[in-house]
């Protein structure tokens, strides 16, 4: 979303403007390359959380269709069936857009609630798509959701810091 250039706008390079959000989301998805063989789903979905952070705090940083390429990239490195994050992330972000139109005022608590909904939707949806209903992963999945939701404020701080870098880039 491009805004009309203002005479008071800070002088910024266009590359840094998109490179920092795009790079941070991809880095979040790539956390799965850490050298660790997991016994059960332990890692929060960092790619999704960082993407949510940008969407909720700086909606103009990324396009409306951003979940499609990011979801595809996440599917390639996460081990989920290809297409699951593309679909679930797009659906979650359309839902956030719809809620966004209704909300008059906004504070961090509302952002957190929206992020909670999106994270829970994406993880539970991903579990239903990837694994049969009889698998014993639901308790672990619940913990994964709780950990991811509790980590969201830290991700939000990270985005705020990155946004500061971006505004100086």
């Amino acid at each position, binding site marked *: 979303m491009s805004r009309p250039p203002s005479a008071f706008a800070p002088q910024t390079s266009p590359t840094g403007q998109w490179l920092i959000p795009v790079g941070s989301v991809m880095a979040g998805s790539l956390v799965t390359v850490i050298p660790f063989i997991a*016994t059960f789903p332990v890692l929060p979905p960092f790619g999704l959380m960082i993407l949510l952070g940008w969407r909720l705090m700086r909606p103009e940083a990324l396009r409306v269709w951003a979940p499609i390429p990011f979801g595809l990239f996440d599917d390639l490195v996460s081990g989920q069936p*290809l297409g699951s994050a593309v679909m679930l992330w797009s659906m979650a972000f359309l839902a956030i857009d719809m809620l966004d139109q209704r909300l008059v005022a906004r504070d961090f608590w509302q952002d957190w609630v929206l992020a909670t909904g999106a994270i829970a939707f994406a993880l539970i949806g991903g579990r239903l798509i990837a*694994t049969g209903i009889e698998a014993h992963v639901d308790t672990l999945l619940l913990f994964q959701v709780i950990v991811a939701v509790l980590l969201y404020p830290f991700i939000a701080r990270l985005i705020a810091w990155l946004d500061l870098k971006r505004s100086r880039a």
Partner: protein
Amino acid sequence: MASPRNRRPGYSRRAQYSLFIGYVIAIAGVLVGAILLLISKLDPPAFSALRAGTAEVTAPVSWGVGSVVRGIGSIPGWIGSYFGVHGENARLKEQVQRQEQVLLKARAIAYENIRLKKLLNMREPAIEDIINARLVSSSASSTRRYALVYAGIAQGVHAGMPVRGPDGLVGRVIEAGPDTARVLMIIDPESVIPVRRLKDGAPGFAAGRGDGLLEVRPIAMTTGQFAPGDILVTSGTGGIFPPNVPVAKVTERGRDSALAMPLARPDALDFATVMKTYLPPPPPPAPDTRP
């Protein structure tokens, strides 16, 4: 705080259209995702080339990070072992003496086994190792249990090959790329392995549960339920896994199945051995060249 309304395009017609098209693309993305998902559900290896290509890039990174982490992580171990080494030495000497008798007996049994097999004129496929390679990363955020092994087609690793660790069976290769291969671990909810009890050979199936444990069901109810402490090894049935590879130890008796803990603890794995498929599928029939 007022909502950041940066997505409101204002009165610019061009900006309004651009936003509208963005939403059209976003909704199309949901459909594209659903279609991709349908393809990957119906034909799981469909996108293996894409995944293998990504793994080619990520595996060296994981490997490099892993070397550094292991280097730092082993320092406390060095210090600890320096102080504990005398007591350990005495304990190990005692253990060697105790086990010598067992070893002699086992050697005699192994020799007798070979002799009897020769007498029976039995033909057995050879159990061959393809390569020892490092397990570099895993699907830690997903409910599926895949691991990435840093060896691929270039090293002779192909889809379907069994993979074992030093302590027991890890899983089998499901997708092989040029230098990496994806391993479906035995604890994955979609993995089922034919096993038998080491003690008496009672056959069963060990299925992954998704939470790090295995669910073991006996094939025949008459052989009785598996009891805690039973060691399960692969039976060789089905032809993928070679027989007698340790799989799991039963920990808990259930109503019609038992819970078992895999002997190869995934979080302690670093190296794995890719083995040749025990009985490779027969080659496709030669094309009929007669006129």
